[in-house]
């Protein structure tokens, strides 16, 4: 493996958890729900994946466990905001705080243990393509799922009837409700999908990226994912571009430092954020398109009229 391949591989590893968490949140927000609890769901996924992998001895089961843990945790958010109609912003923040605390408590027994790593799956024939074969077709299952999720969500939102309904709910839940669309049920499903994606993103951290459990190991990645969704103006392909750009600049700046280019490291550390925001803002400059893509009832509670 040459150095370029090694660098690209590092970038892909760094981008995968951001991409997964962001694509899940994108679906949630497209349905009109703002879940700020991504960080909390991610960390719950991370601790569950690590714990289950340790107990069962299978990293694969760990990944599934992380996904389920994120989904269950998101159900708590769903119950509070959709059934009890609590404020979404406050509930989301509470979910993050709860997740960080609860994961620390659950994970206490697993501190200082080396973890299991989810093995890469080589796809026959395709993996032999020069250069890109090793990069794209010899990866861990969570990477494949992140790419499938982007393609799937893009198709679902813009090509399927169910996706059209979901977007309609996000734009005007009252109108959708008047037309007979099941607003609360659809939103529950969207929130659960978001939770599953965030949980899997967390699992990626604790069984692929850095196979270990340490408290607070998400270190703010849930918030970056949230920001990516907004700056990508709720388009799946732009979320993909944003996550990889963020990954590329964060890894690139580390390499620049190791080479000794002499740019202040504080500036280099800020660069991934600046670059990603700048690029996504520029590609979203068309205001009319941005307005069309913004879910109009984002963050508003829905109480069905009887």
């Amino acid at each position, binding site marked *: 493996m040459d*150095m370029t391949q*090694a*660098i690209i591989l*590092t970038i892909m590893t*760094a981008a995968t*958890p951001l991409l997964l968490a962001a694509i899940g949140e994108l679906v949630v927000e497209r349905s009109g729900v703002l879940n700020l609890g991504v960080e909390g769901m991610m960390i719950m996924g991370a601790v569950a994946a690590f714990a289950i992998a340790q107990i069962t001895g299978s990293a694969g089961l760990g990944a599934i466990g992380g996904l389920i843990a994120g989904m269950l945790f998101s159900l708590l958010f769903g119950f509070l905001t959709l059934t009890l109609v609590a404020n979404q912003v406050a509930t989301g923040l509470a979910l993050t705080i709860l997740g960080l605390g609860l994961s*620390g408590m659950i*994970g*206490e027994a697993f*501190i*200082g*243990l*080396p973890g299991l790593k989810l093995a890469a799956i080589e796809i026959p024939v395709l993996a032999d393509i020069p250069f890109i074969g090793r990069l794209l077709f010899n990866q861990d299952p969570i990477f494949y799922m992140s790419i499938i999720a982007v393609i799937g969500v893009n198709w679902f939102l813009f090509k399927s009837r169910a996706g059209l309904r979901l977007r309609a709910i996000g734009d005007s839940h009252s109108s959708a409700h008047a037309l007979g669309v099941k607003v609360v049920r659809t939103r529950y499903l969207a929130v659960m999908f978001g939770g599953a994606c965030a949980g899997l993103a967390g699992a990626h*951290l604790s069984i692929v*990226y*850095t*196979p*270990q*459990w*340490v*408290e*607070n*190991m998400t*270190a*703010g*990645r849930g918030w970056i994912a949230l920001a990516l969704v907004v700056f990508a103006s709720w388009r799946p392909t732009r979320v993909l571009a944003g996550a990889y750009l963020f990954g590329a600049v*964060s*890894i690139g700046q*580390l*390499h620049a*430092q*190791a*080479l*000794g280019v*002499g740019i*202040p*490291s*504080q500036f280099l*550390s800020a660069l991934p954020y600046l670059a990603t925001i700048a690029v996504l803002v520029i590609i979203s400059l068309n205001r009319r398109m941005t307005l069309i893509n913004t879910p109009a009832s984002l963050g508003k509670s829905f109480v069905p009229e009887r």
Partner: protein
Amino acid sequence: MKKTLLALAAATALAGLSAPATAEAMDKVKACFVYVGPVGDFGWSYQHDQGRLYAEEKLGDKLETAYLESVPEGSDAERAIERFARSGCNIIFTTSFGYMDPTNKIAKDFPDVKFEHATGYKREHANVATYDSKFFQGRYVLGQIAAKTSESGTAGYIASFPIPEVVQGINSFMLGAQSVNPDFKLKVVWVNTWFDPGKEADAAKALLDQGADILTQHTDSTAPMQVAAERGAKAFGQASDMIAFGPETQLTSIIDDWAPYYLERISAVLEGTWEQSATWAGMAEGHVVMAPYTNMPDDVKAMAEETAAKIKSGEFHPFTGPIMKQDGSEWLAEGQVAEDGELAGLNFYVKGIDDQLPQ
């Protein structure tokens, strides 16, 4: 020593109010700790918490403790420290460099509470003490081991923030390495965080990709050790013994042992003998401990043990001249040893480090 302290503490507690000389002695003390990371980081904050638990175990009923973890440096820290001061803590340990100003600010309003700030240098009020460990002593040994075992002649250094403590470490590591191989190369990457396993792992990968075959870190997670293990490189642990994360990777680790200091200072509050002080202890006092030397040939191990013994006995100081600054000007003349005060404010590299120190 510890036993006498305990006996003394017990005696004074029994004597109570009847003994005028120990009028300030207390029956029970509440010690509070502010940590920058989670106690489960298995690095910096973990080691401080081990010290807290040790003191608790030794003092039993006479000590009550409380801690706050993952407290951000800056104004959040001020609130955390103030909350502790108001809640009846007798002594508060603030365990990160960035708590320096908040600690001094709160100390002014609570003259009866003792404040202990780790790794800082400001003691603006009589009730503020500072303490630190001479980690650079261990770093010199690491540098020597790195230069002896590296095949590429290049080590990678994952650095957190450009504060004196970190700069001392980089310089000392390089001086140790140069004592073995004058042409040794050191690549430094600043991650601008104390704790972010993902970012630390990324930095580790970048350094290995660029030809380093030994990693050392001044950040708090075990992620770089794991990356080195995966890539078949070698690495040094940080703050705690990280051998579990790289059984065939870890060469040694600098262990921060705060336990003796915490017991001593808390006991002093119990006895009423606490005084402001600036402690900067190292290997000799048992604050800096080297983990077992592993995964290296016997001659390297022997050299490391010899150097560590010399530093411990005071026979050798890592910052002994002649030492040039990075720009080639002279810092320390032949045989001259750096003053503690100068090291505490160290803000330049020694010659041979190929990096620009962020200012």
